[in-house]
C-alpha cells in the first residue's frame, strides 16, 4: 500500500464526478446572488433534489426524468424561500437557514423506504472511439451527460452574465435595486426567476449525488456540499469561471482525501476534510484585506430586502 496505488487517470476522472454536484449548486447560487439575493438554503434544496430525483428515477426507471424531477423540486422549494423573502420580506439569512433545516427533514421523510435501493444507471455519453483514447478518453470523453451539462452551464452562465442584455438587467438588480426599480425593471419578478433557477441547479446537484456519484439514497447524504457551494461562490468572486475552478479544486481535495485514506497514508483525514473550508476562509480574508466588497466583486445589494415603496 502507498501513494503508488493512486491512479492519476482515475483521480482526475473521479475528481470531475465529485465536483459536479457542488459545481451545479454553486452555479445556481451564483445567479441568485448576482441578482442580490442570499439564499443559504442550498443544502436543503440539494438534499430535496437528491431524494425527489432518486424517487422519480426509481419510479419511472429513467434517470433523465429523475433529474427533471430533482430540478423541479429544488425550484419549488426555492420558490417557497422566494415567496417568504421577496413577497413577505422575511429575513433572507434566517429564511435560508430554515430552508436548509426544512429540506433535511423533508428529505428524510420522503426517503423512507428508499434506502438500500439501487437507482437505474445513468449512461455515459457515447463519444464512440474517442472514449478509448488513453487518459484523455477516460478524463475528457468518459463521463455521463450531466458532467457535460454542468460544463456547458458554466459557459452559458458566463455568457449570460457578461454578454447578454438579460444578464445585465439581472446584475443591475443585484447592484442597486432602487435604481433598477426607477428604470422600470421588475425587481421582485427577476429575483424570483433567479431564485427558482438557483433552486433547480441545487436540485440537479443533489440528484447527481444520489443517482450517479454514490449512487444510493442515505439520509443527510449531501453532508455539507451545499455549504461548500455557497463558499465557492464567494471564493470565485461571483464569477462563473471562478466557480468552475473552485468546484474542481474542492472536488479534487475531496477525492484526494478519499484516495489518501484508501492508500493508508498516515495523515489525519479530518485535516483534509477541513481544507475546503479553511481555503475559503483564507481566500476571503486575503481578498477582503485588500480593499473590501468591491474587490471581492460582491453585488452591492446582496441580501438586502427590497420593497417598491413610492
Amino acid at each position, binding site marked *: 500500500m502507498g501513494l503508488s496505488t493512486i491512479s492519476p487517470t482515475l483521480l482526475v476522472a473521479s475528481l470531475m464526478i465529485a465536483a459536479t454536484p457542488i459545481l451545479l449548486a454553486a452555479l445556481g447560487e451564483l445567479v441568485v446572488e448576482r441578482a442580490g439575493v442570499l439564499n443559504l438554503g442550498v443544502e436543503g434544496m440539494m438534499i430535496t433534489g437528491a431524494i425527489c430525483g432518486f424517487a422519480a428515477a426509481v419510479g419511472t426507471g429513467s434517470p433523465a426524468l429523475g433529474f427533471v424531477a430533482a430540478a423541479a423540486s429544488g425550484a419549488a422549494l426555492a420558490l417557497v424561500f422566494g415567496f417568504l423573502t421577496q413577497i413577505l420580506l422575511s429575513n433572507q439569512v434566517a429564511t435560508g437557514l430554515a430552508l436548509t433545516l426544512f429540506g433535511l427533514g423533508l428529505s428524510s421523510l420522503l426517503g423512507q423506504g428508499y434506502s438500500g435501493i439501487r437507482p437505474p444507471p445513468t449512461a455515459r455519453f457515447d463519444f464512440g472511439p474517442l472514449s478509448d483514447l488513453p487518459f484523455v478518453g477516460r478524463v475528457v470523453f468518459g463521463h455521463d451527460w450531466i458532467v457535460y451539462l454542468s460544463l456547458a452551464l458554466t459557459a452559458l452562465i458566463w455568457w449570460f452574465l457578461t454578454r447578454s*442584455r438579460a444578464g*445585465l*438587467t439581472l*446584475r*443591475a438588480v443585484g*447592484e*442597486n435595486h*432602487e*435604481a*433598477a426599480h*426607477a*428604470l*422600470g*425593471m421588475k425587481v421582485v419578478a427577476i429575483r424570483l426567476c433567479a431564485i427558482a433557477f438557483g433552486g433547480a441547479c441545487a436540485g440537479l446537484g443533489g440528484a447527481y449525488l444520489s443517482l450517479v456519484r454514490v449512487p444510493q439514497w442515505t439520509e443527510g447524504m449531501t453532508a455539507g456540499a451545499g455549504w461548500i457551494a455557497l463558499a465557492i461562490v464567494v471564493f470565485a468572486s461571483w464569477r462563473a469561471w471562478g466557480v468552475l475552478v473552485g468546484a474542481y479544486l474542492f472536488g479534487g481535495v475531496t477525492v484526494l482525501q478519499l484516495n489518501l485514506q484508501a492508500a493508508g497514508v498516515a495523515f489525519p483525514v479530518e485535516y483534509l476534510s477541513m481544507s475546503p473550508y479553511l481555503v475559503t476562509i483564507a481566500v476571503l480574508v486575503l481578498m477582503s484585506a485588500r*480593499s*473590501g*466588497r*468591491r*474587490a471581492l*466583486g460582491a*453585488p*452591492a445589494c446582496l441580501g438586502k430586502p427590497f420593497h417598491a415603496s*413610492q
Partner: protein
Amino acid sequence: MTDALLSVEGLTKAYPGVVANDDVSFAVASGEVHALLGENGAGKSTLVKMIYGLVRPDAGQMHLSGKPHAPASPKEARAAGVAMVFQHFSLFDALDVAENVALGMETPPPRRTLARRIREMSEAYGLPLDPGRIVGDLSAGERQRVEIIRCLLQSPRLLIMDEPTSVLTPQEVRILFATLEKLSSEGTAILYISHKLEEIRTLCDGATILRQGRVVGSCTPAEKSAAELAEMMVGSTLSAPKRARHEAGEVALEIRGLSLPPAHAFGTPLRDISLTLRKGEVLGIGGVAGNGQDELLAALSGEMRSPAGRIELAGRDIGGLDPTGRRDLGLLTAPEERLGHAAAPDMSLTENALLTAHGRERLARHGFIDWSKARGFAERVITAFDVRTPGPENAARSLSGGNLQKFVIGREVLQRPAVLVVNQPTWGVDASAAAAIRQALLDLAAEGAAVIVISQDLDELMEISDRFAALNEGRLSDPRPAEGLSVEEIGLMLGGAHDLERPGGDRPAARPASDAGAAEAHPS
C-alpha cells in the same frame, strides 16, 4: 398656453396620512424650461414621479402633445418621450458607463455602436464621457452626465431634472446650463426641480410653486427676486441668520499633515491635511461629495484613528483616542447621514440622545442608564430646537428629515462642545429648518466654541463661515476669509485649482474628474 407639450389637470395623489398632491394643474410648452418650486414635502417629487410613470395618480389627468398620458411604468413614459434625471443618481456603481446607458434604453444597440453614440452625443453637448469607465470611479458631475446622456440618447420631448445641481461645482453647473439651453433651443421641454432660486431665475422660463401638495402660484422667475420666490414657497418671510462679530480666540483644534487611507472602496484618501481652528470661529469646508468629506469627519470624530501628533485638541494629542474619548474632551461631531450614522433609525429619540450624550450629560452612572435624565435631555433638545414630534419616545425613523436633522444637531449643540464638526447640516432640509440650524451653529460659535461646517451648499457656507476652505480629492486648500470671496474664486478652489500645483506623485490612479474639472475651471 395652447401649444402645451405637457398639461396636467387636477392631479391628486394621497398616501396614508398625507396628501402628496392635491388637485395640481400646470402646463409646459415645447422648448420651455419650467421650474417646479417648493420646500421639502411640498409634493414636487411625487408629481414628477407620476409624470414618469413611477407612481399612479389617484385622480386627474395628463396630456402629452394633446394625447392622454397615463403611463403605467417608466417604460411607457419613456416610450412617450419623457425622460428623467434623478435626484439621487440611479446608476449602478459596479457597471461601466455603456452598461449603465444600455440599461436605461428599451432596445440598446450593440455595445460598439452604443459606445460610439455615447461619445458622439457627449461631445455634441459638451459633456465628455468615456463609455468604458466604471461608474463608481466617476465624480458626481460625471455621473450626472451619464444620466443625462442616457436620457438624451432616447431623444426625449420632455426632460425632467430633479435637483440636478445640488452636487455640482459652479463650473459644472455652467456646463449643465449650457447643455439645457441647447436642448430647449432644439425644442425639448425641461421640467426643472430645484431649491436654488438664483438658478431658477437665470435658467427657467416659467415656474409653478407648490406648497403642501397644492399649487400656490405660478410666475416668470426672471421677473421676481429670489426673496419673493422664497416667500411664495414658504408662505412667510424668512430671516437670514444673524451673525455677531467676534474676535477669533486661541487655537482650539489643530491638524498637521494628516494623511489617511479611504474608509471604503469608493472612498477618497485624505492627503496631507493641515488646518488651525480657533475658538469662536466657523470654518466652512466646501467641496463636491466624495472628495474626502466622510473621511475627514471620521478622522475628526475618532472613527478612524490617526498617527500620533497629527490632531491636537487644545494642545493635546487626540489622534489615538476613540470617539468617546474625544467627546469627553469636548470634540463633538454630527455626521452627514442622519438615519444609520448620526441616529439609529429604530431607536427612540431618548435612546438616540443617550448614544452620544451619555458621557457629557452624565446620563449613565456606574454602567446603569438614568432614564429620567436621558428623557429630560431629549426633551430639552426637542424644545430648544423646535423638533416636531409627539415626544421623545418616538423612533428616530418616524421623524421627517428636517426634524431629525434638527434633533441630531441640537443633541450635539446642547452638550456644549468645545469643537463641533458637522457634515452637511442642512442636506435635504427645508428652508425654515435650515435657517434654524444655521442660526444655532452661529450662536454656538458666538459663545466661544469652534465650529467646522462641511457642506456642499456654497450659499450656506458663505452665509455662516468666517473662513472658507475647499476639499478636493482629499486635499484641503488653505482657508481664506469667507467675506469677499467670489463665486469664481470658490469654483476654482473646488474644481481644478489643485491640479495647477499638483504636489508629489502620490496619486494612485488618474481621476478624470479632476482633469475635466481643470479644463472647465479655466474659462477661455
